[in-house]
């Protein structure tokens, strides 16, 4: 999975050769999502000793246009988990409605049972895998953050193909390239998670959001961040501003628009 949602789910050109786009003209009566339209970029998350931190910026891009600048891409589920969405925003909104109706059904049908993050992740992975098997994918990559059945931190990823994996730190899209190496310095192994404090995890995520804002052209300096712990439940802040930016490094950039010294 790379930082271009347009490339997700397609055979890689470097492996399979150039892609034949002529299909796009056919007026098939059944319309499936063949490419994402309005997209969200990276989602980042880190596990720490008693919970998970997850963050995503508030931007929804239309190609290279920063189209919507106040889109919440962290969606809470039953006040115990957070799903962070990357990829197509309309598919995100569909999934959000789906999860809301699931939550309603769950709450009505019995007392004392509630789906934890692990259950939610399993459910979402089945939804995504079913849709890819119908060749009608939901064009997203998601991170599910919360606590599992034993109240241990839980963090796992699902994408449009139904692929799932879990790791102490995760990042989707551009973040998989830029942020993940930085986050792995915090916890590169499940055994290290117990040594990571909440403050350390938050700091690392905020630092990565900044790096991504520097380098990812489809990113924004306003973002959402959520902390999920057993004690505090879900603390979701949806309108944060990146702090402590330094653009001094820009002076040293050569190439691109700055080939000529002024």
């Amino acid at each position, binding site marked *: 999975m790379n930082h271009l949602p347009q490339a997700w789910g397609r055979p890689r050109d470097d492996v399979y050769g150039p892609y034949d786009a002529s299909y796009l003209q056919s007026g098939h009566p059944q319309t499936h999502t063949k490419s994402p339209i309005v997209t969200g970029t990276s989602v980042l998350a880190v596990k720490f000793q008693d919970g998970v931190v997850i963050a995503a910026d508030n931007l929804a891009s239309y190609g290279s246009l920063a189209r919507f600048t106040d889109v919440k891409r962290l969606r809470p589920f039953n006040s115990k988990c957070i799903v962070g969405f990357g990829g197509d925003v309309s598919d995100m909104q569909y999934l959000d409605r789906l999860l809301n109706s699931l939550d309603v059904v769950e709450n009505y*049908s*019995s007392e*004392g*049972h509630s789906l934890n993050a*692990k*259950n939610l*992740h*399993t459910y979402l992975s089945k939804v995504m895998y079913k849709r890819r098997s119908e060749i009608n994918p939901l064009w997203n990559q998601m991170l599910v953050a919360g606590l599992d*059945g034993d109240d241990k931190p839980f963090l796992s990823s699902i994408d449009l193909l139904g692929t799932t994996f879990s790791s102490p730190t995760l990042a989707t899209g551009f973040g998989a390239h830029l942020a993940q190496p930085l986050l792995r310095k915090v916890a590169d192994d499940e055994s290290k998670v117990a040594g990571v404090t909440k403050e350390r995890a938050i700091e690392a995520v905020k630092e990565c959001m900044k790096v991504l804002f520097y380098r990812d052209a489809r990113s924004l300096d306003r973002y959402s961040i959520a902390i999920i712990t057993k004690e505090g439940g879900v603390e979701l802040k949806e309108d944060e501003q990146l702090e402590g930016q330094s653009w001094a490094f820009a002076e040293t950039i050569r190439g691109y628009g700055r080939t000529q010294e002024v």
Partner: protein
Amino acid sequence: MFRNNYDNDSVTFSPQGRIFQVEYASEAVKQGSVVVGIASKTHTVLVALKRNAEELSSYQKKVIGIDEHFGIALAGLASDARVLSNFMKQQALASKMTYGRPIPLERIVAQIGDRAQTSTQVYGKRPYGVGLLIAGVDETGPHLFEFQPSGMTQEMIACAIGARSQMARTYLERHLDEFADASRDELIKHGLLALKESLSQDKELTVDNASVGVTGLAQDGKRKIESFKLYDGGEVAPLLEAALESAEPASGDTTVEGESMEVDT
């Protein structure tokens, strides 16, 4: 001869507001051999009296494990129970598949309740001729449920259904206060003794005719639940021994004589 005009189907009420087909279905439950279920704070047990239809035949299955965390005991039409148990097995597997969690008992019981109700309100359908005890453990702890052909379901602390089950219920009522804190072994013992109460005088519990199913919260911490364990045949011997031994001194109760034991169909 009197002919009841209101019992030809299950969708017509009698003028007295009764649905005879459903009541007849309940009779089928009373014809089945007795099954007992008890729940404590940590465990649930199902105990059943198996009958063989004839000397040459094998004994009927009375206790069925559905999933790791729960099982059922049946009284009445065994084939109807099989249909229901297959349905429950499918639902349990589906829950594992889609959410990765054991299906909540309350939920699966509501599902079979709804199914059974449908067949009391749709023309051309026949109510299930079987009563079930559903016992197991989920996230909210141990549970025991009773299910009747009418679609009625309710959670119980202890329950007995089937032929001559009144005697077992009397035993259960008498020992009600002991169940909540009973250990696994004590709970099995209570189950077997309650079952024994329902036996006709010429019968006794043997390794051939008794089945026991147990589920509970795990003691060892590695796993959360103790998988549903069915004791059948030789495995029942030590359980029977322990139960009957403890019962020897207080054998003051006299069992009511009368109808011979009924046989499952």
